[in-house]
């Protein structure tokens, strides 16, 4: 009875006889959700198909969603360019993987610890800090490129691995989202743990982190993308070619080739975009389970 009542609360009434499995009355959900989810899938289908498009289809206007005569030519062009580069591609790949892994792990730890303090601890500067963070969230990152360069030079991390990692660790967006989720963890849970003698570190590690797993997975996906796709740091703060990332390398490849040969350049760009995109998709597929599953029974009221 209660279950049936619960089901009937949203926009569509089910008259309390909703079966647990599929029912004709549910078809209307699919009528709305299926078309919309196709819209959501379009870009991914597009990115896959355009990587396999021959030149004439790439330049067709209006652009066509699906490829008609799939070809591996774009990938071959890309490969032949890779073999002519001075530094082996594996070097760029290694840099990208190392930097991305460290950045994601460290930024989650730092942001979530800070978010925990801002959300659940009482101290003077708490509200001021969060307000400053929210305002800083608004500021355009490209405008601070040059002042940031001065800081980096003063710290002596110009042209090292550190410059890839340190500047992106304390990003306002992560703190902003994580704090909102930690706000949702009931104070009673923390008080109960304190009464049981748990220290702050234990509370943070054993209670807060598991309870906000969906948020952490979300932030992990976002930071992964930011780190993996970052070509700017390699452009501005790195002189040494062997310390640059795959994203940077692929972007130079495509932009240099567009001036030389536009037709091949577009194809290479499409293939490179797919290669850059795949890890994002893989991470998403790995982490979406955490985002989705814990959301339904996270102990939050």
């Amino acid at each position, binding site marked *: 009875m209660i279950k049936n*009542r*619960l089901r*009937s*609360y949203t926009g*569509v009434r089910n008259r309390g006889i*909703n079966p647990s499995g599929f029912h004709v009355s*549910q078809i209307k*959900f699919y009528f*709305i*959700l299926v078309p*919309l*989810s196709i819209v*959501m899938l*379009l*870009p*991914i289908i*597009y990115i896959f198909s*355009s990587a396999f498009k021959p030149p004439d289809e790439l330049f067709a206007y209006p*652009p066509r969603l699906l490829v008609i005569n799939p070809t591996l030519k774009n990938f071959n062009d890309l490969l032949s360019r890779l073999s002519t580069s001075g530094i082996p591609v594996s070097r760029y790949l290694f840099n990208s993987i190392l930097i991305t892994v460290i950045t994601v792990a460290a930024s989650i730890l730092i*942001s979530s610890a*800070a978010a*925990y*303090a*801002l959300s659940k*601890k*009482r*101290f003077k500067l*708490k509200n001021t*800090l969060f307000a*400053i963070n929210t305002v800083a*969230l*608004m*500021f*355009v990152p*490209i*405008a*601070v490129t*040059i*002042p*940031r360069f001065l*800081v980096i030079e003063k*710290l002596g991390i110009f042209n090292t691995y550190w410059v890839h990692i340190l*500047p992106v660790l304390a990003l306002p967006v992560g703190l*902003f*989202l994580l704090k909102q989720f930690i706000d949702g963890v009931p104070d009673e849970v923390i008080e109960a743990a304190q009464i049981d003698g748990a220290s702050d570190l234990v509370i943070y590690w054993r209670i807060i982190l598991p309870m906000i797993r969906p948020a952490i997975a*979300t932030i992990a996906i*976002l930071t992964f993308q930011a780190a*993996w*796709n970052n070509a700017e740091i390699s452009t501005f703060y790195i002189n040494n070619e062997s310390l640059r990332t795959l994203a940077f390398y692929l972007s130079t490849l495509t932009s240099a080739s567009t001036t030389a040969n536009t037709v091949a350049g577009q194809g290479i760009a499409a293939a490179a*975009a797919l290669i*850059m*995109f795949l890890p*994002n998709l893989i*991470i998403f597929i790995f982490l*979406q389970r955490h985002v989705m599953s814990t*959301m*339904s029974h*996270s102990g*939050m*009221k």
Partner: protein
Amino acid sequence: MTARNQPRKGISLRAREALHGYGFIMIWVIGFLLFTLIPLLETLHYSFNQVVVSATSINLTFVDWANYSRALFTDPSFIELLIGYTIETMVAVPIVLIFAMIIALFLNLKFKLKGFFRVIFFLPIVITSGPVIRELTAQGAASAPGIANLPAVADFLAELPRAVRSPIEYLLTSFILILWFSGVQILIYLASLQKIDKSIYEAAAIDGASSWEIFWKIILPSLSTATMINAIYTIVTLSHFSENKVIQYIYNQTYNMQGGIGYASALAFIYFAVMIAMMGIIYLLLMQWTKRKSR
């Protein structure tokens, strides 16, 4: 022996909690100061100067508000870009919010394949950042050019005054693009929908409330915090989007001989002020809304 039972000298319980709080946040504060706040203040300083970068040093000449007045009164394109951006954002934010809320309400129901749909609607977060969206906008695939160019629609649009026309045009051409920006927002709505105590629905149903009333009186008010968060998040993602025209303009000005870093810094601060203003408007509207609802 007795000292052990007494609180340590000078540290009260409250001070200790504050200390722990600072301990947790310390690393983040240092990083934030070094790489965000200090560069930001430096940019503010630049915006009042003519900045000339040479190989060895950076030379500043104080010019007072000249950069700002140039941006606001003489620059032919910046203001136009900024107005365009403001209109687009003001159109996009409500659409993203409403769309995300509706989808979240759907995904909170019980039906088959729910998990699958949740994943699909969360998927855009891997699209909107990075190479995919660049590729898509570069090829013009993110817009639906067909609709706005249909003769009937085009005639209708031409009748309208410009102030009304441009938001509608934007809506028609970028509707799909707007939808792609709602991945995280759907997630935030879903999370706060699940925080609503189920027994409230029960109580309301027993009191004879229809599902429509339950939506307006229970669900919507309890989503107000999530709506604020989502509004902020949407504005930020739209404004930092790499294909955003204002961003590209500021970026080009930075390396422009005539403008330079000082001018670009001033542009960035004007942009920043516009974003804060939009945020303020949305905040006030939402405050009004939650106040009325709770009455």
